[in-house]
């Protein structure tokens, strides 16, 4: 019933006529459609072309950037990430020089240590020669710690020649480290009467090291510790006792010798040294 009535209404509606848009309107719309179809495929093709380019180009750019950054990080000086304060950091070239100088110093110190141990079996004169540079190296380390950030170029000559350590000492001025160096150096070069014993030397070096620790890096502190170790060797101590004996300070020498034997009960004093340290 409803369907019939709908059909009746539909028929009545159809009776109203089947108007069509004017021909001009048809032409205008179809022309616009053709224009758009002619123009847009080109745009779409261009866009598709760009899309073909974009993905590989973007990928390549990202890869190149990643490789460049990686290479740059690999060629960076190691230690750039160390906690050294950046504000006082010298220019990279100067830093490299200082690093080289420190490496050489470390090698020299190691050599001296070995030579010192070996010379315990040799002549006392030879021992004197090795002892002085060893302690002077302490001065040099303290100086280089002090001077490196400001005047790095001065380091290489000091490192290249082991002997002029003492000659360079007057150039050291100013900081706590250099002060400590001045205190340490004469004590090593001069007689024991004017200097502290080995423990005192070690303590001074350590205090200088502590005072300097704020500005100094870990690699710089290592040679100082090694110097302290060198200063504590029995040979060195015996050498000082021998010097006391030579100066006629026999009581001091006896005390020092007794103390030495107490500390090193198993140490066998070589015969030439025994002749020098024991009271005749």
């Amino acid at each position, binding site marked *: 019933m409803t369907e019939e009535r709908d059909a009746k209404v539909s028929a*009545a*509606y159809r009776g109203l006529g089947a108007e*069509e*848009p004017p021909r001009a309107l*048809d032409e205008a*719309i179809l022309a616009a*459609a053709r224009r758009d179809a002619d123009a847009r495929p080109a745009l779409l093709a261009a866009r598709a072309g760009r899309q073909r380019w974009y993905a590989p180009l973007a990928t390549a750019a990202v890869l190149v950037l990643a490789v460049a950054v990686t290479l740059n990080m690999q060629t960076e000086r190691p230690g750039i990430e160390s906690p050294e304060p950046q504000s006082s950091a010298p220019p990279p070239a100067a830093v490299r020089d200082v690093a080289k100088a420190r490496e050489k110093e470390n090698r020299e110190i190691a050599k001296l240590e070995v030579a010192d141990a070996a010379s315990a079996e040799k002549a006392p004169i030879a021992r004197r020669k090795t002892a002085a540079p060893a302690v002077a190296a302490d001065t040099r380390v303290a100086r280089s710690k002090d001077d490196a950030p400001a005047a790095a170029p001065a380091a290489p000559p000091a490192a290249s020649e082991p002997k002029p350590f003492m000659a360079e000492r007057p150039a050291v001025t100013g900081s706590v480290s250099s002060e400590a160096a001045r205190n340490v150096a004469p004590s090593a070069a001069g007689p024991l009467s004017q200097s502290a014993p080995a423990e005192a030397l070690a303590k001074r070096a350590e205090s200088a090291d502590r005072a300097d620790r704020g500005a100094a890096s870990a690699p710089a502190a290592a040679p100082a510790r090694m110097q302290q170790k060198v200063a504590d060797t029995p040979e060195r101590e015996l050498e000082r006792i021998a010097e006391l004996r030579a100066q006629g300070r026999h009581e001091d020498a006896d005390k020092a010798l007794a103390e030495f034997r107490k500390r090193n009960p198993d140490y066998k004093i070589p015969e030439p040294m025994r002749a020098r340290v024991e009271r005749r």
Partner: protein
Amino acid sequence: MEAGDEELMLAYREGDAGAFERLYRRHKGALYRFVLRSIRDRAVAEELYQEIWMRAIEARARYEVHAKFTTWLYTIARNRLVDHWRKRGLTLVSLDQEAAAEAEPPAGAEYEPQRVLEAKQSLERFRRALEALPALQREAFLLHEEAGMNVAEIARATGANEDAAKSRLRYALSKLKEAMGDD
């Protein structure tokens, strides 16, 4: 076998102007009448009709087959008509208003004193009854008649729920039948 509307529109999206022409010729009359009988003013109707097709042309790159082509096309048309009415300060009445309007006799639908069986007069009454329909009811009826939409499709094209679309269509048919002197 003739290509479907959606197929032709997809072909046009890819740049086939001929596909659009076929599509246009297939739907131009129905859409034109839908607009003309919604607006009444022929000049305005033609302007709106052209704008509707231009919008379809512009939107072709974004066209996806989510529904029937006619649903897509008549949704564009309806949106354009709503814009037009808004500019004129007119709005489509709500369903409640439609119900209220139902009680009122359609304007211009008065019967002539003597029943003349001439077809011309009958059609004139029908035309007046159609014009007197509330906009949403008329829209539902025109979509049903011109676009061949069922209730669900009308609901989708007009953004209404199916019950509302069904109600609108039912009221429209009822009034038109009444105008035909069928009730």
